[in-house]
């Protein structure tokens, strides 16, 4: 059995969103100089008016003052004082992981916004959220594509362009057009370098390309691309440590997906060797993923011939994975999910195995609801 494609964990604006929210992007205010610009350094400029949002710079103006530019790379968050209340609600929904709800609210905000700058930002976020939701619903994917294309058309040199292009590729992938997504990414990789995009976008582009290759069954290519992702993440972390919370899971995912590519090719021994090697690393989050991967493969190998000895080995590896501190809840969810499968497969060989399996699945469903394993757990429980 192949693991479901994980939802892309990358949330480029998570930290900034949280900070902005905490600064009070809660209620709409009808105020000309009510914008805020949050800087990478933690400082922020309040009571200003943002007058320009370009890919390379953000321009703001204080009441009675002159326009001031700051490099886009120094900006980590923006707040629009005159944004409709839906904008703040959307950010809140996005923060708590309700990407579909957030997208709807951003769309509402885009309709109601009176300033173009705000309207375009809301349009972008609406599309980005839908794209990030990684839904397989083609209507939603198409909506995402439409919103992102609308933004790119309106703001060809806009502040959100790098992310918009990445999200557009992701939306195409989600829409089933994996070849199209892969084809779109190649020139973007070049653009990212020449235009000096933040390195995190480069990492995300590579991850999207790898996912597109994976989806097309080009597992060896995908494996190579995922290797590139891991390297890109390391580079991005050096430049943008503030985004560590989003970048680390991306790296974990890239490493896990290399193992998944072996599994998809039914190269279980290769997969096992790969994960074993990975498990010997000291990086905690990665170790958890590697252990969970080993457990998964051992289970897959054993379940074909109900080999109790191998199932027991799987049980041990999965228990190790379940307690290992991870940087991505997906590893824990996966470990618990496969533990449940192992317990079920052990049948009478394990005391109360079936009942205990249920508790593991319930944990996955409740505690790891945002991971793809939650859906599988739900199906197992319902079935």
């Amino acid at each position, binding site marked *: 059995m192949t693991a479901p494609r994980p939802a892309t964990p990358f949330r480029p604006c*998570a*930290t900034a*969103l*949280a*900070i902005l*929210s*905490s*600064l*009070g992007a*809660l*209620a*709409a*205010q*009808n105020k000309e100089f009510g914008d*805020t610009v949050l800087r990478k*350094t*933690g400082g*922020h400029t*309040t*009571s200003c008016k943002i007058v320009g949002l370009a890919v390379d710079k953000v321009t703001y103006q204080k009441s009675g003052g002159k326009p001031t530019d700051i490099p886009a790379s120094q900006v980590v968050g923006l*707040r629009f004082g005159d944004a409709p*209340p*839906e904008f703040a*609600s959307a950010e*809140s*929904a996005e*923060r*708590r992981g309700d990407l579909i*709800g957030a997208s709807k*609210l951003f769309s509402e905000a885009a309709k109601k916004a009176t300033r173009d700058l705000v309207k375009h930002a809301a349009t972008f976020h609406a599309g980005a959220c839908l794209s990030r939701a990684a839904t397989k619903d083609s209507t939603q994917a198409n909506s995402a594509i439409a919103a992102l294309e609308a933004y790119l058309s309106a703001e060809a040199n806009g502040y959100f362009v790098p992310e918009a292009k990445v999200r557009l590729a992701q939306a195409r992938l989600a829409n089933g057009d994996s070849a199209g997504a892969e084809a779109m990414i190649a020139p973007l990789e070049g653009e990212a370098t020449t235009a000096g995009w933040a390195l995190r976008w480069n990492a995300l582009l590579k991850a999207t390309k790898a996912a597109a290759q994976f989806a097309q069954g080009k597992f060896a290519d995908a494996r190579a691309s995922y290797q590139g992702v891991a390297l890109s993440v390391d580079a991005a972390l050096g430049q943008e440590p*503030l985004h*560590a*919370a989003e970048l680390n899971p991306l790296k974990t995912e890239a490493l896990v997906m290399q193992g998944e590519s072996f599994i998809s090719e039914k190269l279980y021994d290769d997969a096992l060797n790969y994960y074993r090697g990975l498990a010997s690393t000291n990086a*905690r989050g990665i170790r958890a993923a590697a252990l969970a991967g080993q457990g998964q493969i051992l289970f897959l190998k054993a379940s074909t011939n109900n080999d*109790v*000895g191998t199932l*027991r*080995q799987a*049980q*041990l590896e999965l*228990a*190790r994975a*379940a*307690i*290992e*501190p*991870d*940087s991505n*809840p997906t590893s*824990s969810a996966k470990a618990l999910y496969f533990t449940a499968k192992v317990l079920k497969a052990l049948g009478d*060989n*394990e*005391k109360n*195995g079936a009942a*205990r399996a249920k*508790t*593991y699945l319930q*944990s996955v469903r*409740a*505690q790891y609801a945002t991971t793809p394993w939650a859906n599988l757990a739900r199906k197992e429980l319902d079935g």
Partner: protein
Amino acid sequence: MTNPCRLAHLAILLLPLTALPAQSAALHDEMEFVRGLVSELRFIDLAQLEVDQLKKKYKDSGDFKLVAQLHIDVSLQGAKRHSDRAQQRALYKDAIEKSSEFVDRYSGEPVAAKARVTMADACIEFGNFLNEELELAREENPDKVAGLEEEAAAIFRKGVEAAKNSEVAFKNEGNKIEQFVAMLRRGILIREHARAVPKDRTYLCGEASDVFEELILEVGEETILGQKALFERSKIAEVKGELAAAASRYKDTISAIYTSLTDPDAGLPESAQRLMFEMMQEVYDRAATVQYKQGNSEAVLALVTELQKRIKEFQTEPHYLYGASIMLTAARVKAASPSQSDVSEALKTAKEINKDHANDYVGLKAKYLIRDILRSKADLVTGALLLEVARGDYQEKNYDAAIDGFKRAINGMDAESRKKLGFDAWVLIGRANQAMKRDLEAAMAFSRALDEFGAELQAKNDNDTNQKLRATATAAASCLGRALESAGQHAAFTDLKSKIDGQLSDYNPDVATAGDYAKGLQAKAKNSFADAAQLFFAVQPSFPKYELAIGHGIECLFRANKFDEALKKIEEYRSWAKQTAIPEDDRVRRGYRPQALAWVHYTQGRILYERARGKDGKPDLTKFKDVEKHLLEFEATHAAHAPQQMVKVHEMLGHAYLEVGQDDKAVARYNTLKNLGTITPDAHKFLGAKIFNTYTDQVRALETEMNSLVEKKQDATATGTKLRLLRQQALDLGLDYARTIGKPAYALLYNTMRLAEELEDWPKCEKAAEMILKLYPKSKAGSFRQVRPVLGYALLRQSGRMQEALDILEKAEKQLAKGKKTSAYYEVLRYKALALGGWPAMDKDGINYEPKTGLGKPAEAYQIYYLSEYRKFATNSKRTPRYSLPWYRFHLEAYYFARHAQSKDDKFRTRAEALYGIAQNVDDFATLRSLGPEGVRIHNLFQRIQK
């Protein structure tokens, strides 16, 4: 945050409570009780039940309206105090609904004014509640916003109407204060309506502003009510989104209140000062919220600092709600900081607020802040704090969340904090898994804690740390044990088991040695005493139960018949214990030592006892003295610590005393055991039989003595009494023994039966005979020749048992008739006759004649007794000399049968007279009377029958 306007205090200060209408004292007391339930005891549900009862009781009374009003108050107070928001919502709705009904029903009466006030208050409270829900919904659940807005609008409209009507009513009454407070309520309700519904906000804010303006003009800015109105008006700007203006007005309000509070000429009473300070805290909270919404983080923190300064200045406490709310706002500011210490502080504050406000609105906001920080800024929070947060989940039994939290904490720890807290975090992961019955994961987590931190912690070598390590190693082993059990001890777990066993040896050698102890117990339970002894002696002195292990080991050697080895170990242990003092604070070991010392002393006693008993049942009487001495020492020293061993000690002493002829002491031990209720079947079998035999020997001796005295015609009274007493003791013991022992010896049962017969204790005699027949049914001698006649006679002597007696005797007769007829056969014939015809007898005092009638068949009895072979047997001169007691008795019984038979058949008259004449003889019974008391008794019976 929309802070509710708490008008209750204001109303208390400004308004006299509306005088209650006349009511009965009983109702007054009952209502006070209900109010007390709500306000002091917080028993809302109980109060509601009480109100329902009152409503039924006063259904048709003029006081019903008071009870109805009470119902509303209870719901409202309950709503305010309830910790569950769903329940709060239901109670608010109930209060408003009931208020509405009440107002409709009594609209023309004075009581309606009070009800309208209550209703307006209820609408403010519930409206504020809904505004809180709305604020959260706008952030967290946008889908719910429209419905909540609609619901809130309806409530505020209802409240405004109630406030307006009460205002008019109070105005008409000329009650200005109540009129103004009602006006204040109206303004608040309109403004909060504006807050709830954005589309109507502009005109509603204008309307509210007008109300407050008018009120301020009426009462003046300088009054408390005026200041309250100013403050409430300043909130309008916030509602309208004019945050800068709101901030400025809040600042002014704070200044105005502070000025009033510090004005020495104001002369405010303390209660008013308190109220104003509370109001000021509310304004601070609002001001901070507004500044926060503007992104003015420095201003938020400055407000918090200023408030804290003023709290100190006025020597008071932060308000429960506003104090927490403003601190949470400050925490939200700090959460936005890139500084790790600020974010950690924010999380800490949110955590504390969440704990104190578990179910209210502030608590909910705190929960959201914690969630946001953990989601997006966990990397900026210290591992220690993350651990604390996760610990909170663990304590609330949210184990999955706790495990995630502990793992996050481990990731967030730097080298220093990992050193301090890493061990605890892993242990907690273990415990959370253990709590979810995930034993394998738990075992691994415990093991990991030891793996990563064990060696370093062990190097500290302090008691607490060692205790922690021991507990963790034990927990790992115990969890793995359960996992292995579930997995059917599968070999795949072997490596893990070896590792955890190793950790157990390293960190808890006591438990490792405890393994030997446990295995020793198992071997002992399987009677593998030699193996068990070996395991017990492998237990190390560091193990708390070391000395008990020694006790077990020595006992096992004894039970394996290795007496010399056991005695050697006893000496070694005593010597060790003498040299090894136990620290004062080691209560466990101090508790075990006396037990162990008692145990070895006892085992030594058993060894001495077994040696004295000798092999092949040949006791060495010389050794029993030592046994006695040793066991008496044990009794004196250890009886209090060793109640169980004392049972065996009594047994052994009892036996020792019997062996050396100290029967009385043996009996005393036996009785002690019986009195304690601790006598074992073995002790009973052994000691009981021995003592019974001793008793019967003594009975025989006394019987001989008695016969001799009678023969010599000497006074035998004392001997007779002694004999009777001894027979009684022997009989009781015999029966007790027989009851306890499964199958006592035939001889013991037979002797018991005979003792009962001698004592004429017929029920006991019957019991003993029945037992013999049951336990020895095939014993020819027992069942038929000796026992059945006795049983028949025992039944015969119990009233109402004649037919049973006859049945038994007929069976006995049939059996005894076979072969040579013995005296038993003839005795059975006599008993049969007695059963059929009865016999003459006096009462137990020997005064009144009370014949036994038998089965009322004297003619048949006479036939068996006198006209059959029995007469020949009974009157055989060799066996029964003429004019002896048996001879007289024979004639008495025959005479009795004939005398009674004559009533039906006159021919018996002649026979009766003839028999009387034979017995009377020529000396008119002089010979009979000379035969002692029995002769006199028989003579008396002759006389009675004749009469």
